[in-house]
């Protein structure tokens, strides 16, 4: 019976957990997008190679 009681989260605990998970999901999405930006930037630099600096002024 005690175990059953322990398993039930109070409404306040559930709300706090929901907010925490929402924040973590938001951070994960932000990190994912930042990684994508970095990948595109890095790949562009690699593709350009030295040619980025080799142009007439």
């Amino acid at each position, binding site marked *: 019976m005690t175990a059953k009681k322990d398993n039930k989260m109070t409404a306040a605990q559930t709300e706090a957990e929901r907010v*925490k998970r929402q924040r973590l*999901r938001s951070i*994960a999405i932000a990190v994912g997008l930042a990684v994508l930006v970095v990948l*595109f930037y890095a*790949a562009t630099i690699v593709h350009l190679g030295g040619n980025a600096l080799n142009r007439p002024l």
Partner: protein
Amino acid sequence: MALETQVEGTEIGAGPGVGDFVALMKPRVMSLVVFTALVGMMAAPGGLHPVLGFIALLCITVGAGASGALNMWYDADIDRHMARTAARPIPRGLVSAGEALTFGTVLSVTSVLTLGVLINWTAGALLALTIAFYIFVYTMWLKRRTPQNIVIGGAAGAFPPMIGWAAVTGGVSIEGIVLFLIIFMWTPPHFWALALYRCRDYERVGVPMLPVVAGPDETRRQIVIYSLLLVPVAISPYFIGLGGLAYLVTSSVLGAIFLWLAVRVYRTREGREADRVAKQLFAFSIFYLFALFAVLLGENLAERLIAWGVFGGLTA
């Protein structure tokens, strides 16, 4: 969305955590995909800038994970009734089916476009084909209709080394196809060994795995047939110059053990011993594939190190 109103038996009503989404991507399957794709990339002639190589590998991995999430979305109804899959995030009510569908779709599109734009469109198209094949051909069409489901559907799991190869070379060649064929021929005996001792699970949910439809004896016969086809295919990289002497020895010895285990599965048909040998074959088949690709990778790395003069520098 409040999950507690959506799914009975939900463990917690606080919405999905980041870890639940990671679990949707089938991390264990992804690890094999990463490894085989890496071997495909390393074995390919020429080279790819390490940054681009990392991006290609990441895209292939995320694409594989995305198809895993889409598979879990579609199969949620049967997953909850099978011991092996009941703990997945959707059956447990941790992630809703809609969330899994959105997650899988966004990652599929992103990984294919990124691979196509940043690496090359042959690799991008192959990744798109892999995801589409796994979801539409295997999961939606074949899995619940025919005992040949994993024979044909196994192609989806066989594409990663070919994509890795295409990422480096920009095309598809006989070596990439041979790597594909090794995994393609390996899949049936691997999954049928599992299905032999998980037969009741599949039967309960109506998935027509071979032991359910044709019986365990026919499955054992098919395991031997596919093992006989697999072993020469697995040795063939040596004869097309993809593998060296170490690969020839490894693939021959491990192939002989694979065949021996397959024959034991064929002969042992009763009681717990039958389940035990099937489990043995299943476990060995994972090691077998891993070892073959590890030796290919090792040989290739050694060749590169020799070419860079690392060993020469040490001995000079």
